Structures are given as structure tokens and as C-alpha cells.
């Protein structure tokens, strides 16, 4: 029961915020990592956010990894990667003073990440702005910094996805939740098929255009043909020397080596 003539209860003051000891600021609970560069390869593509984008790899500039030498020099290591068909995406690809990297302070030092990754203080979770990243990757292709995917790569991706869909379809009656996965893969498949169609459209001659005739070989000039064959290896050797490649082996081997250097082809010479 309330008493009369009692003084009003104290309103109370807002307490001062608790003081946090210096150096006790939370940091992402993640391990350190080295600076890296993003590299693209003609064989690596994926569908993200409804777009076919290059599946970039992180080339870590870490001492002792893939040829980064004792003083941290990575140029030789990068040249080696390029000779295997990788294309460097420069850190300032979006203009001078920009970078696709971000660095965070973590308990054991520094951690490098791409600017589309999200880290959280006090957490080990890594989030992603994958739609923005996909748009950026697609832009790399539009800007010509990464070549469009080869047709055979997309065909291979389609084959694998079709096999996966067939496999999932067999199981969806027993596991209905697979329907979500099937829908996602069907959407990816549609993206790949559209891209394949577009590429075929680029490759095929316009309707009504006469196919380009193959150059005719002059059967009379046999000597010239023989000379061409003899000189072929010499020309290849010269080209290999210019590119700083080994000149050992047969003409075919040297040609393959040059192709690998120039186009990043496989060892068996297939693109």
C-alpha cells in the first residue's frame, strides 16, 4: 500500500560507461595471413550471383611459398605463375591508389582479405558480399583484363552440372530438401547455356556470309615446302630463345613449350 507524503523516489543518474582497459578492444578471432595477389586462369570459371565469373586464385606472397624468395621478392614467382597460364589482376586494377585488398589487425599480427570479405570483431566468422564481388569479376572480363572463357571449359561445366542434376533428381523423392539445390543448379545451368550460346554466336560466321577459304597449298613448289619444314625448327628455336625458353627437344616439344608460355596450354598441347 502506497504511503502518502513520501519524497519522490530518486530518478537515478545514467552511470558512466564502464571503462575498458586499453588494448582490450575486440579483434576478429582469425589467424594472420600474408598479402596476396589475385590471378585468373582460362580453365577456372564458376557461376556466382547469376553470372559466369573467373574463379580467381589467391597467390600468397609468403616467404618460401611458390618461389617467393628469402627477401620477399615475388617477381620470379609471379613470372613462373604467368608461364603456367595465369593472369595477374593488379592490386590497383580499379585505378591508382585503389586496392582490392584490406588488412585487419588480428591477435597474432595482420590478416589480408579481399574488400568483399567481411570480418567481425570477436568472431571467427567470415562474411561475403558475393554479389558485389561477382559484379567486379564480370567487369574484369568486360574490361578485357581477363579473357572470356574457352568454349570447352563451359561445355565441361555444363556436362558436370547435368550429371549432378541427374544424380540429385534420382534422390529428390527420398530427400525433398534437395529440391533447393536442384533449383540452384538449374539456374546455374541456364547461365552456362546462355553463355555457351553467346560464345557460339561470336564464333559462327554471320548468316549468309561465305565461309573463309583455306589457303591453298602450291603442290608444285615441293622444294619450298621442304625448306619450310627444315626451317620450322630453326624458327621455333629462335622464338623460344626470344621468350627465354628452353630450346631442347623436337620441334613439336618446342612448339608446345611456346604455346604453354603464350597461351597457358596444357602439357599435351590442348587448350
Amino acid at each position, binding site marked *: 500500500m502506497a504511503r502518502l507524503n513520501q519524497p519522490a523516489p530518486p530518478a537515478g543518474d545514467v552511470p558512466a560507461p564502464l571503462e575498458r582497459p586499453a588494448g582490450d578492444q575486440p579483434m576478429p578471432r582469425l589467424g594472420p595471413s600474408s598479402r596476396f595477389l589475385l590471378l585468373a586462369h582460362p580453365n577456372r570459371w564458376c557461376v556466382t550471383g547469376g553470372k559466369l565469373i573467373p574463379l580467381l586464385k589467391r597467390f600468397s606472397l*609468403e616467404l*618460401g*611459398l611458390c618461389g617467393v624468395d628469402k627477401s620477399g621478392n615475388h617477381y620470379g614467382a609471379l613470372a613462373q605463375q604467368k608461364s603456367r597460364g595465369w593472369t595477374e589482376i593488379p592490386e590497383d586494377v580499379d585505378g591508382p591508389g585503389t586496392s582490392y585488398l584490406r588488412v585487419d589487425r588480428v591477435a597474432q599480427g595482420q590478416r589480408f582479405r579481399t574488400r*568483399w570479405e567481411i570480418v567481425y570483431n570477436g568472431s571467427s566468422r*567470415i562474411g*561475403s558480399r558475393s554479389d558485389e564481388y561477382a559484379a567486379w569479376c564480370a567487369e574484369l572480363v568486360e574490361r578485357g583484363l581477363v579473357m572470356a572463357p574457352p568454349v570447352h571449359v563451359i561445355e565441361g561445366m555444363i556436362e558436370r552440372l547435368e550429371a549432378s542434376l541427374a544424380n540429385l533428381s534420382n534422390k529428390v523423392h527420398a530427400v525433398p530438401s534437395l529440391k533447393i539445390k536442384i533449383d540452384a543448379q538449374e539456374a546455374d545451368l541456364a547461365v552456362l547455356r546462355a553463355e555457351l550460346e553467346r560464345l557460339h554466336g561470336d564464333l559462327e560466321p554471320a548468316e549468309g556470309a561465305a565461309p573463309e577459304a583455306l589457303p591453298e597449298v602450291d603442290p608444285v613448289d615441293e622444294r619450298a615446302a621442304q625448306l619450310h619444314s627444315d626451317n620450322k625448327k630453326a624458327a621455333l628455336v629462335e622464338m623460344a630463345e626470344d621468350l627465354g625458353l628452353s630450346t631442347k627437344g623436337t620441334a613439336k616439344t618446342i612448339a608446345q613449350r611456346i604455346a604453354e608460355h603464350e597461351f597457358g596450354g596444357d602439357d599435351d598441347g590442348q587448350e
Partner: protein
Amino acid sequence: MATTLYADLADSRLPAILGQELMLSREDRSVILNHPALFYAGDVTGSGSSVIKQSELDFMAAHELAAVADGAAVTPTTLTDTSYTVTVARRAKSYEPTDLARLTDSFGALDPVKFAEDATLSAGMTLTSLIAQLMGGFSNVFGTSGSNLTLQDFEEAVTSLEIANVAGPYMAILHARQWGDMRDAIRTSTGTVAFDPASPDMIRMRGTGYKGSIYGVDLFVSNKVPTANAGADYAGGVFGRGAVLWADASVPVDPSVVGVNAGKVMLEFDRDAASAKTAFVSNYYLGVAEGDDARGASLITDA
């Protein structure tokens, strides 16, 4: 009768006592022990270079015998070689506890023997971390970005290696997220899966990261496996011998060295009497590189 409270005994009670056992922090300590799929290119000590060039030759049944007519001369076969390089660089760590920190240590953690154990384990983890970072870098890629790793993805990656004549045994290194998806796929699989889970004996031999063998591939888990696609995916991989090369060196041991030579890792004690502290410095020289790219396949799946 007055009650004696705990707070009344402030001079005869401690604010806290230490637990009987030291608990280690939550870190990935799954060292990948030497597996036949990892190609050890050698020790550069006394070799004249910090770079090892690993040659590869198309020899030993790489070329079949040609059909040659009786009396005809056989065309000589040219041997073709290629090479991969591994660059060895220094890795080091130093702990510098003061005498006061050490003399009050009731666990024996700041003991030279423990520092030596830490040095060897850390060297193993460094090697593991460098190897794991290579997994996402093969030009052959399997899996679907944003989708969980499936048995089919794994099988396709293994099959691609078999088609490419990659010599076994194969080794897979996956992130724990990917392994979780794989385990789920094994559990819900409607067919027979040739999965041989790791026995305690095998874990003792191969380390805590070893999870078992599937389709004949030894499967290891390491959370050092990097992310891909701006953190949306993890980039594990499967590979055969020759895809990953590593090399190391031995630290010269002089009579002046005060410390422990723990194999290739050197732990030295650097006493600073003026500051009453001792630095426990470990040095290790190693290098890891991708060898033949076609001998490995990346598995890039949802994070």
C-alpha cells in the same frame, strides 16, 4: 553470533588459484605428417643455392616401343624434361619471457623442453599451412561455388587425376566446413561409399587432421585451407605425388650455439642478463611450391 564471511579473510585467501592443468587455446594444431603424396625435393644445406630444381623426365615406359619393319632402322626417341623449383626461405619465432615470468610459472610451460616442443610443432604447422594454401590454386577445379561439397564433386576430382595418369597415393586436404559437408554426404548416401574412417592408430601415425580414406584417397582436414570467391567458398583440394613439392635446410650448429637442435628446427636460448630475460628463438628454413599443376585438382565449395 557474528558470521565470518569469505570477504573477512582477504589476507588469508587468494583472489584465484591456478587450475591443475594448462589448457591450450583454440587453434588448428593438425600437423600433416609426411605423406607419400607430398614430394620432398631435398635439403639445400651446403648445396650452393637456396633453390632446388626438381626435374621431371618422360622416361620409364613414357614411350611405347614403335612398330618397325624388319631390317629398318628405328627412329631414336627424344627424352623430354621439364622442371619445377622450390625456394627455401627462413621462418622464425621468438618468445622472450622475463625471469620473473618464468620463475613464477607453476605449470612448467615456460620451460626449455616445452619451448622445444612448441618449436617443432610450430614448424610442422607452418609446413601444413603452406601446403594448405596451395590447394585452391590448381587449374583443374571441381565443386560448385555456394554449394556444399558432395561425394560426386570429390569423385570427379579423383577421376580427373586418374585420367591424367597421376601416380598415387592421393591426398586430400579440406577445410573443416568441407569435411562436415562430406561427412553429411557419406551419411545420407544411398549407395555404398568406400570410406574407411581413421582409427586411433592411424591418427597417431598421421596426425589429428587425418579423417580416413575415401576411394583410396587419404583425407586430411586443415583450417589453414584458404577461402575463395571473396570468402563465399573454401578452396580445398586433392592431389597425387608431384603436385606439391617441399624442401628445407638444416641450420648450422656451431659450438657457440646454446640451444636445442630439434631436427631441422633450431631452438636457441639468447640470454639478456641486463634485462633479466631469455629469448627462445626458433629458426626453420623451408619452401613449398606447386609442382606439376595437372597432378592436383581444387575443390571449391560453399564456406
